[in-house]
């Protein structure tokens, strides 16, 4: 599983690198810090489950803060300060938690266990920008250069999420003992994130808030913790990385070449940038979990697990969030990308960046049609341990009873 995540993030890093070659947003210092961030992320994930891994991932987060600050502009400096205001305490909190309960997290019991859960929950919520700890996310999305935002949202955040998912395996009690809190945090982030995204007129801020919605869904998967939910969450993380790279990448490309922020008042970008437009639309569709996007593979798994957990009520919440997401992205697509062009490009479009984004989108759709290469890796189990949903085996009688009770 970790190898897959490492490979995927390496692919993302390569894509971001190619994009950055084409849409330059920083000098040598930027390249140095970006490389350092990615190296820390990959090394941290490779050493996951050890103090070295935790330290490396923390270094990656700090390097990402430095990456934002390296831009030098006032908005980027403000965003960098906000990001570090969240990340530094988050690192301290998670380190304290690990010190309390150890890396492999055997349950200490009593108040120590509860304190450890508090520390980890708040620490990871800050790192991932869940509601109400999301203050840094829109600031980074809007203030930092596009490529930097992509590195943070599609690579660093996803690595952090990988760390959380790994913790779910190592110390399930951290989640099971406070499952209601984790699930509530996830649902609130999803719902509020979706509404906040809908409230935005600036496309980058909209993307930032929809990131929070999606991370809420992924945290929901981890909170539920069943094999199916975990597989869904990890697939969702990969899909999130792919989609958000393309979404931010296309908006960044548009902003660079029309010379102003893309807002809901921007009209008909597709007429000027057809390939980028197609990439944005397909990435958005994937992001909100519509088949044949790869995101669907993640969504249905988490939905099934959530239905087992919360019955009809949770289905309703999840589908309402999905509907708001759809409204939000449909508006962005139709206000900004489609329709009669009312913008002019101030410089010629590069070829490499749209090609990179298009390639990622093709990968997304291809994996949507045939997700098995990825899903089989995530759902690989030791012999004899069945994945009950995908093999369509029936749940036990007691499970049936619980499900019926939840539904009625």
């Amino acid at each position, binding site marked *: 599983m970790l190898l897959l995540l490492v490979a995927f993030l390496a692919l993302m890093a390569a894509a971001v690198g190619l994009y950055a070659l084409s849409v330059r947003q920083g000098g040598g210092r930027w390249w140095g810090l970006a490389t350092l961030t990615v190296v820390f992320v990959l090394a941290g994930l490779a050493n996951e489950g050890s103090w070295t891994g935790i330290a490396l991932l923390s270094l990656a987060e700090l390097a990402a803060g430095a990456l934002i600050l390296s831009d030098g502009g006032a908005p980027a400096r403000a965003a960098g300060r*906000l990001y570090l*205001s969240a990340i530094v305490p988050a690192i301290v909190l998670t380190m304290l938690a690990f010190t309390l309960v150890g890396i492999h997290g055997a349950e200490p019991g009593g108040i120590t266990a*509860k304190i450890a*859960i*508090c520390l980890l929950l*708040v620490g990871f*919520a*800050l790192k991932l920008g869940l509601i*109400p*700890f999301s203050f840094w996310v*829109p600031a980074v999305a809007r203030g930092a250069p596009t490529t930097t935002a992509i590195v943070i949202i599609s690579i660093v955040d996803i690595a952090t999420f990988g760390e959380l998912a790994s913790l779910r395996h190592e110390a399930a009690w951290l989640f099971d*003992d*406070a499952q*209601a*809190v984790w699930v509530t*945090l996830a649902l609130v982030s999803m719902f509020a994130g979706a509404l906040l995204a*809908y*409230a935005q007129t600036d496309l980058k801020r909209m993307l930032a808030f929809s990131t929070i919605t999606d991370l809420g869904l992924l945290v929901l998967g981890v909170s539920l913790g069943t094999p199916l939910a975990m*597989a869904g969450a990890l697939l969702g993380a990969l899909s999130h990385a792919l989609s958000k790279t393309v979404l931010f990448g296309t908006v960044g490309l548009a902003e660079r070449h029309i010379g102003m922020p893309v807002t809901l008042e921007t009209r*008909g970008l*597709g007429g000027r940038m057809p390939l980028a437009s197609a990439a944005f639309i397909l990435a958005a*569709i994937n992001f909100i979990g*519509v*088949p*044949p996007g790869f995101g*669907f593979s993640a969504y*249905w798994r988490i*939905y*099934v697990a959530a*239905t087992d957990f919360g*019955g*009809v009520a949770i*289905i*309703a919440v999840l*589908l309402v969030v*999905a509907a*708001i997401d*759809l*409204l939000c992205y*449909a508006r962005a*697509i*139709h206000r900004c990308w*489609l329709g*009669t062009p009312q913008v002019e490009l101030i410089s010629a479009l590069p070829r490499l960046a749209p090609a990179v984004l298009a390639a990622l989108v093709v990968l997304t759709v291809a994996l949507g049609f*045939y*997700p*098995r290469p990825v*899903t*089989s890796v*995530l*759902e690989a189990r030791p012999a004899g341990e069945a*994945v009950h*949903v*995908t*093999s*369509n085996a029936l*749940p036990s009688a007691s499970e*049936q009873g619980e*499900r019926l009770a*939840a539904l009625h």
Partner: protein
Amino acid sequence: MITTLLPSPAFWPTALLFGGAILEVLLAGFLSSRGKGWLAFIATAAALAASFALLPAVQGGAHLEATAFLWDGGAPLTYYVDGLSVLFMIMGTALGALILMFSIGYMADEPSGTTRFFFLMLIFIGGLTLLVGAQSLLMTYFAWELIGLCSYFLVGFWYARQEATDGARKVLLITHIAGFGFMAAILMIYAQAGTFIWSDPKVAASLSTTIVILLLVASMAKSVLFPLHTWIPEAMNAPTPVSALLHSACYVKAGVYLIARMYAIGDWHPAGGAFLLVVACLTMIVGVVFALAQTDLKRLLAFHTVSQLGYIAAGLAIGTDLGVAAALYYTISHALFKGTLFLCAGSIQHATGTRDLRELGGLYSKMPVTTWVWLIAAAAISGVPLTTGFVAKWLLLSAALDDGQAVVVMVAWFVSILTAFSFMKATVSAFYGDPSPSLAGKHIHEATPTMQVGMGITAVLCVVFGIAPQFLMDPVIAPAVEGLGFNWQIATSWGGVLTRAGSIDVSLGAIGVIVFSVVAAFGAYQLTRSRPGTAVNVFTGGESLPEGDRLSATDFAEMAEVAFEPVYKTDPDPLWLRFGSWLGAVAGKVGQTALWAEDKFIAVTLAGAAVLCVWILAL
């Protein structure tokens, strides 16, 4: 019969269509627009042949199961092909092939985007075959959304035109949001049955009223049933072949498939039959009344699609073997005549540059083939004997009478009359009379040969299966009905006469009514026809009309618009709009709070952390 090999014939239609789509992309640089069109046509024709090849395997209610490969994790891609699946596969690929043949000429002059067009058309048709073949509800949902997206992209084909993209947006939002009902139903089924395989008896046991209603709501949006029908007139700014495919075979019929399939899944009828019947009747009326008021030819046809889908839904809602057979026959009949009508509308737009009935007229002299093709299809949709439309209505009314549904009979009869008037208006306005001044100076030409062949074949089939419906009923409809668990006791003869015991009286009585109606209409026409040099024989309250003038179908339509004024207030769009505004207002308030929270982030963070910690400590 169970096979587990990849090249099982069950997959051929889908594989040929998706394979054709891939070839479209790979060969894009080597093929002209016409070449791409021919490639798409050949792939679809091959898929049609493959669909026909499945017919013997599903006779007598048999089915074919086959597994292709592991698709998602441990879940295999499995097909369950029964009579219903084959019926929809044949319909989708046959109409698809003819529409693609029409598209060869229609799209030849399109300056760009033809690869995208033919690629999406093939995926669209392939998506339908996937939908009707899939055994897993998850894969069914996948296909459901796949065809939804194809229609979205195709409706917005001319993406730089605002009106086209607005229509596409509406398609996406209404059908996809309602589609969440399908998703919710699948999740609830899985929660209770523990499987996604719809043919599993545990799925039947899990069907509850909530699940049935959710499935029906999803189908209503796809199949343009009231009040989820408002996306379809807005989708008319698509290229005409897209409209034809969307209306006739591949999109609105997806909902019909799902409702019909529910009979094979379990006994859903007690939970949702009455609900569907009410919706169907309302849809028939609302669709035709709105159609009467249209002056845009494609919008007029779109509202008739709404109305006609009401008929089909009524047949499914009746729920007897004859009702379901009527609905399925109507499905194919509608595919044929509506496909033809849209292709004619496309020919008109191609030739004149407009589809506004107020700017048309006198096209018969310039486009005789199109006119004759249109007349056949218009006769079919109006239910004129010797066409499929007549047989379809005949079967449906018989089923309603058998089931004691007098209201359905009255509604269907009333709507048929309005349908006929609507088409008289459209026919006269477009093809007869003097050409509109706005056509002056335009080089109006007949459709190209491939266009004529495409729409000509569908028109001929309207007549062939109208005269000899048993050739469709016995090999295609019967296995579909049997596959759904009904006993096939229907015997149909020439012209649609039902010959099973108990039906002959009704049939003969109805034939008597038809003969009487024709004679009476002819007599009335002769009596009221004005003679040259005499005053017009129309009562106008004392004022004589000018010589040669008389009231026409158009006048009736205008009168109907006034008479049906209250019905136009049933447009549900303002309701959806109000909901959108409300959501925007709520989101705006939350957005302001978020801005405040971003400003006070330290306090908000500390407060949030405190709440979470207190909660955890209290656990």
